[in-house]
């Protein structure tokens, strides 16, 4: 078996993975990236709407800064996130946006003077400052107090991924395409690399490295309908699970996006609503203001998805052969706006629905979209259990998003996380040496050989595709937007049975080289374990928080459940994961738990919440310079960052007293 050595191994060539590779190379390390596909086809490319960063250039972003972005992110997470991580992220987001401009991203820019926008279904005139002309613009997105989602029309993911991949190519960073990592090489304490299979030749290889960074994206394809690319099957998370020691965090935290088209599930960006589009029911009635009078269509995604589902349950959905749906109306935005700022949405409507969104409404319904859960890491991106194993982007539970991710914060996480964690990966590589134990590597290689031999030569009778489809249906029906104990019990039981059956998969196509059936068979076993962590986590969590919504436990329960679910799989023969919980420390929070602002304020409080609030008030009164927001922040919750990211972010109106909120 060929063994390839590198300093910093990255699995996954999307935004997060490439960004870590770039950081590694900048620090003088050797780096290799593994990818199932050409880098520019990674799922990052599909992101449409934009990347949040508190630049405060546009008039509707005036007064924005890291503090506001931080508050929005923490609230958006329903207090499930790690607030230290949220601070690291919000501080560095403007730097990442500016760095990307330097790498070639053609961010849409502010035009000074008057422009007409749609806010709350009305035409409103915004006046952009003269000083802001040519600076990076931002659009409105859900769950935010200021407009801070930076964009390039509605192909932001494309622009970002292309710029970052071009940068990586300019630095000579190799990407090994059509290479699938199937096992992590480790000794129980330290990660040494991966065993991978070439999807073209079938060759099994070992990649051995000082650090291994998993940046393989989310696990949406465990569901029957998802906005995700079909390769987003959670294999990265499965790799970590199968070490038997590494933990996954909050796997049950799955986001459903309000507006994916029916029936194929292709995404139409939140930017449609951010730019002024509205949702309508079968009577053409705009229903969201009834449910959420304040934020309406721009409430947080989990809230909008639930309200849409509730409304359809009342019989207000449009009937179709694919089940009920609702309408997304962007006709009020006008031809010019759609042709320039929602270009990709228009193409999707034309090709997949045969409609023109300038004049017709788009059929949409909430669809699986994003995985908040993932490989658990410390704030520096490293697994708490396996040294040398890092994870970044959607693959990780850093934990930036807690139980719900704000729109625009995922592209941001990928790039900013990659930027920050890339430094920690480089630090680790510089301070560590690697002892290559070829016996250990061979052993892991042999496990993969044995697995493949069993599939090809064993006389299995189950079909991988059948098991996969049954799993996807179970997840869709029983582990969706509204969950309950009875259905979750059924899901867990059914998934365990499928996992059992997956030990008996057989193949019709017996090729050892390019063989799609073999690829599926190797993946479905792994996907089932991932699906079980989601179903078990959801079943055990008897509260509602963010996107995890229990009909039988509708309240947020900070008293018993202000914690993070950790799942692991210590016994490889088990049919269920092991769950433990890590408490989220209220006394360490900068922003203690509060009301998100949606629905009834009926959360069961944590005993420390009031104590911490009083402590914060005390700290603030004792401050020498209470008007200095940096001093305030440092007094309440000091956090770590690599030194080069510590300087303050300069903004246009830093020294001028501005009133924000002029557009709302």
């Amino acid at each position, binding site marked *: 078996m060929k063994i390839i050595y590198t300093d910093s191994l990255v699995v996954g060539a999307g935004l997060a993975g490439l960004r870590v590779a770039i950081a590694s190379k900048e620090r003088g390390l050797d780096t290799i990236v593994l990818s199932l596909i050409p880098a520019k*086809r990674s799922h990052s*490319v599909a992101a449409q709407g934009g990347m949040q960063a508190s630049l405060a250039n546009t008039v509707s972003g005036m007064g924005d800064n890291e503090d506001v972005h931080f508050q929005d992110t923490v609230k958006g997470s329903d207090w499930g996130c790690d607030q230290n991580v949220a601070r690291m992220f919000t501080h560095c987001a403007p730097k990442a946006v500016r760095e990307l401009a330097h790498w070639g991203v*053609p961010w849409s820019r502010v035009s000074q003077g008057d422009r007409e926008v749609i806010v709350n279904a009305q035409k409103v005139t915004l006046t952009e400052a003269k000083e802001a002309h040519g600076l990076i613009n931002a659009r409105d997105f859900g769950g935010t107090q200021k407009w801070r989602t930076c964009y*390039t029309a509605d192909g932001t993911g494309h622009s970002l991924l292309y710029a970052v991949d071009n940068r990586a190519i300019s630095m000579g960073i190799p990407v090994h395409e059509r290479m699938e990592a199937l096992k992590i090489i480790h000794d129980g304490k330290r990660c040494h690399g991966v065993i991978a299979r070439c999807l073209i030749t079938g060759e099994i290889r070992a990649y051995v490295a000082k650090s291994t960074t998993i940046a393989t994206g989310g696990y949406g394809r465990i569901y029957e309908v998802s906005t995700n690319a079909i390769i987003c099957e959670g294999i990265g998370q499965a790799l970590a699970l199968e070490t038997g020691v590494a933990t996954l965090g909050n796997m049950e935290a799955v986001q459903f996006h309000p507006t994916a088209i029916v029936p*194929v599930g292709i995404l139409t960006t939140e930017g449609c609503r951010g730019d002024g589009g509205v949702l309508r029911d079968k009577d053409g009635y705009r229903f969201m203001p009834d449910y959420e009078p304040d934020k309406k269509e721009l409430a947080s995604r989990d809230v909008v998805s639930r309200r849409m589902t509730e409304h359809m349950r009342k019989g207000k959905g449009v009937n179709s052969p694919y089940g009920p749906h609702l309408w997304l109306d962007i006709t009020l935005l006008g031809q010019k706006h759609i042709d320039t700022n929602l270009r990709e949405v228009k193409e999707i409507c034309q090709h997949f629905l045969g409609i023109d969104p300038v004049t017709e409404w788009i059929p949409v319904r909430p669809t699986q979209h994003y995985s908040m859960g993932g490989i658990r890491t410390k704030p520096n991106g490293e697994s708490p259990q396996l040294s040398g194993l890092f994870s970044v982007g959607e693959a990780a539970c850093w934990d930036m998003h807690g139980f719900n991710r704000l729109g625009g914060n995922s592209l941001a996480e990928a790039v900013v996380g990659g930027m920050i964690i890339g430094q920690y990966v480089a630090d680790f590589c510089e301070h560590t040496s690697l002892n290559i134990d070829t016996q250990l590597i061979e052993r892991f290689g042999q496990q993969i050989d044995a697995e493949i031999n069993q599939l090809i030569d064993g006389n299995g009778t189950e079909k991988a595709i059948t098991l996969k489809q049954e799993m996807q249906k179970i997840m869709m029906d029983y582990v969706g937007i509204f969950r309950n104990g009875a259905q979750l019990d059924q899901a867990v039981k059914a998934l365990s049975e499928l996992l059992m059956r997956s030990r008996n998969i057989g193949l019709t196509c017996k090729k050892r080289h390019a063989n799609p059936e073999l690829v599926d068979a190797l993946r479905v076993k792994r996907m089932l374990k991932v699906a079980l962590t989601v179903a078990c986590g959801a079943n055990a969590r008897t509260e509602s928080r963010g996107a995890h919504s229990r009909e039988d436990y509708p309240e947020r329960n900070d008293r018993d459940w202000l914690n993070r679910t950790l799942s692991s799989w210590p016994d490889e023969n088990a049919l269920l994961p092991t769950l433990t919980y890590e408490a989220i420390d209220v006394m360490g929070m900068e922003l203690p738990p509060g009301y998100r602002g949606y629905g009834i304020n009926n959360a069961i409080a944590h005993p420390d919440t009031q104590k911490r609030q009083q402590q914060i008030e005390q700290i603030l009164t004792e401050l020498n310079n209470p008007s200095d927001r940096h001093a305030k922040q440092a007094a309440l919750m000091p956090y770590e960052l690599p030194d080069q990211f510590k300087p303050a972010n300069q903004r246009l109106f830093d020294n001028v007293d501005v009133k924000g909120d002029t557009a709302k």
Partner: protein
Amino acid sequence: MSQARQLTFSIFRYDPQDPNDKPLMVRYVITETPGMTVFIALNKIRETQDPSLQFDFVCRAGICGSCAMVINGKPTLACRTLTANFPSAEIKLMPLPGFELIGDLSVNTGKFMRELAERLQLWLHPNDTDMDIHRIEAPMAPEEAAKLYELERCVECGVCVSACATKQMRDTFVGAVGLMKIARFELDSRDSRSSEDFYHVIGNQDGVFGCMTLLGCQDACPKDLPHMQQIAYLRRKMTLSVTNL
């Protein structure tokens, strides 16, 4: 409501890694469903009739560029090709010509595009190499940003390469994709390269002077990129840069 049609797919099958295999067109018949695309059809065929069938889909939404193939003689993205648009119910699928064949309908566009990028240096060469990420960004004209995005929408699908007569005759021709990307950077005010610099890479028969203006690229591009306009613009720009007019 008429009965569902039976679609006959004629698909190119060949495994170049199998010394005993020979290229063959194989027929598969499936029942059409409402809204069916070639993506849905191919997966159905693989699932129910032949699990060895190779093809590449990733986003299935027309934006990643993975699934380009020749469908009834035209190179295009398979994931958003509706079967309802074929009145004869006969659909012939071939892999994209001009690329290394992996097997059946799967070709290695990734390798081609990476090599092209390295050859033509398809990344921004920034004017100011020293950049301070903590300070306010340099402004850019809003119109330039919008125009750059228009030229940047290429998804590297390879359709323009397959649709190109020059590429068929001249393996080293950079193709419309190469020229479009050069055009994108040439327009970018942040790029330090001059017309002379670009002339060095595309001012020859492998570049802008190799184009025969048959414009198969313009006709077939799934993203409606302005190939015709940009190739003409570049050709003129390159000529002017060396004749000092």
